[in-house]
C-alpha cells in the first residue's frame, strides 16, 4: 500500500511526541484503543483557562495511526476546549488522504482528543472537590 506524503511526513517527523505529567491538574490524558486491536493512542493536553497550550502523544499503531495522532496534537494546540471538541475524524481523513481501511485510525484520534478533554474536565471537577475536602480536614 502506498502512503500519502503527509502520512509519511508525520511518520518520519512526528510532531509533539512525548508525555506530560498526568498527575498535574492542568493536564488531561486520553488513552484509547487496545493492544490486541493493534492501535493504542495516548493524547495529552495542557490547559490554561479554557485554552489548550500544549499537547503530546504516544501511539502504538500503524503509520496512519501515528500520523493521525501527530496531526491531532498539532490541531488542538492553541484551540479552546470547545473548539478542539469540534475536530472531526473526517477532517483528519481528508488532511492525510487516508484510504478507507485506515479510517478507524482517524476515529481513534478523534476519540483520543475527546477522552483527553473529558479527563481534564473530570479532573478539574474532582480536583476542586478534593482540595475542598483537604481544606475541611485541615485544622
Amino acid at each position, binding site marked *: 500500500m502506498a502512503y500519502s506524503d503527509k502520512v509519511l511526513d508525520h511518520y518520519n517527523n512526528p510532531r509533539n*511526541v512525548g*508525555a506530560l505529567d498526568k498527575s498535574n491538574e492542568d493536564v488531561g490524558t486520553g488513552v*484509547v*484503543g487496545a493492544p490486541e486491536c493493534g492501535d493504542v493512542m495516548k493524547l495529552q493536553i495542557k490547559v490554561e483557562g479554557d485554552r489548550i497550550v500544549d499537547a503530546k502523544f504516544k501511539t*502504538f499503531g500503524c503509520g496512519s495511526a501515528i500520523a493521525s495522532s501527530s496531526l491531532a496534537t498539532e490541531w488542538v494546540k492553541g484551540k479552546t476546549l470547545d473548539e478542539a471538541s469540534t475536530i472531526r475524524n473526517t477532517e483528519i481523513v481528508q488532511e492525510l488522504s487516508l484510504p478507507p481501511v485506515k479510517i478507524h485510525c482517524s476515529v481513534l484520534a478523534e476519540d483520543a482528543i475527546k477522552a483527553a478533554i473529558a479527563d481534564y474536565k473530570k479532573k478539574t471537577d474532582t480536583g476542586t472537590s478534593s482540595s475542598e475536602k483537604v481544606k475541611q480536614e485541615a485544622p
Partner: protein
Amino acid sequence: MKLPVYLDYQATTPVDPRVLETMLPYFSDDFGNAASRNHSFGWSAESAVTKAREQIASLIGASPKEIIFTSGSTEAINLAIKGTAQMYGSKGKHIITSLAEHKAVLDTCKHIEKLGFEVTYLKPDKAGRVGVEKVAEAIREDTILVALIWANNEVGTLNPIREIGALCHERDTLFFTDATQAVGKVAVDVEKDNVDMLCLSAHKIYGPKGTGAFYVRRRKPRVRLVAQIDGGGHERGMRSGTLNVPGIVGLGRACEICEAELEEEMARAAELRDYLEEKIRAELDMVHLNGHEKHHLPGNLNLSFSYVEGESLLMGMDDVAVSSGSACTSASLEPSHVLRSMDVGDDLAHSSIRFGIGRFTTKEEVDYAADKLIAAVKRLRQMSPLYEMALEGIDPSSVDWQGGH
C-alpha cells in the same frame, strides 16, 4: 549492495539465471505442444517435459510417473482434498488438518464441509508443531485423509512428517502434505517420509510463477483422485490442459539445482538466519521468537517486538522487503491465523515480522536489514504508550482496554 533488500523469500523467489536460461528456448524455438505426438515440435516438447519430470521426482524421491504438473500449490491442494473427498467419500467423510495450514488448505476444507464432510482442525503447539500423538487421537474409522503442512509459511516450523506419515499408513488413511515451503529447503523423500501426496511450487524454489508439481503415489497405496479439471485427459487424467512447457522446464531445472546444492544452501541460510537473530537480540530486549527453536526452515526467522506495531515497523524499514503478521498488512484486517493458532497473543501477532533468507541473500544485506530494524524498533518504542507503561512497571496485557477497534 542493491536496494531495496529482499528478505521475503517465503513469498516468492527470483528466477535463478540458470533456470531462466534453460527455459528461454521453449518460448520460441521449441514451442511445441507436448501432446502433439506426430511431429518433431511435439516430440521435442515432450522430451523436455519428461526430463523435468525426472528432475522433480529425483529431488523428492518419487518415480517420474507419480508427478503431475499443475499451475502451483493452490491448484494441487484443491485437487488433493476435493479429489480425495470425491473418490473416497463412500468409504468415509472425515478429514484431518490443522489450524496453522495455508489458506488454500483451510478454504478448501471449508468448501468440502459444505458438501457434507467433517473436518477436524488440529491445534498446533506454541511452536506451531502438530505432534503425531494429536493426529493419532484424531484419526477415526471414517478418516480418509490427513492434510498437514510440511514447513509453515509464516513461522517456518517443520511438522514431524515422517512419523505422521507412518501413522497414517498404519491406520490406513491417506496422507497429503503441502510441502511448498519445504521442498528445496530441507531434505524431502516421499518414500522415507511416508507421504502419499505432496505439492510444490516452482516460484518458491527459484523457478517461474504459475508452475507447480503434485506428487501422487502409485503403489502402496495407489492413490486415486477425481479430477477437478476435465479436458483432454492429460497427466494420467488427473489434470487436463496443455502443459506449460517453458514453466515445467524451469521447474525441472530449479529442482535439479536445489538437489545439487541443498546441503550447502541449508547451511548458508541457517548461518545467516542465526546471525540475524543474534544481532537483533544483542540490541533489543523483549523480542519473541514465533516458531520452533530447533525444527524450523533454515532461512526463516519470525520475531515479535513487544509494544511496536508491525506495519509501522515495516514503514521504518522502507528499503527492506519483509512481511508482517499484523492485521494492518493483511487483506482480511485480521492478525495472522497461524500465530493465533499458536496462542501468540493478538498484541504480539500485530508486532511480528517475518524474515526470509534465500539463495541470493548476502551478509551485507542481513546487516543492513538488522540495522534498519533495530533503529526503527527503538524509535517506535520511544513513541509507544505501551512501552512507556512497561517501563513504569505496568503490564499492558493486565489493563482492561476498552473501546478498541
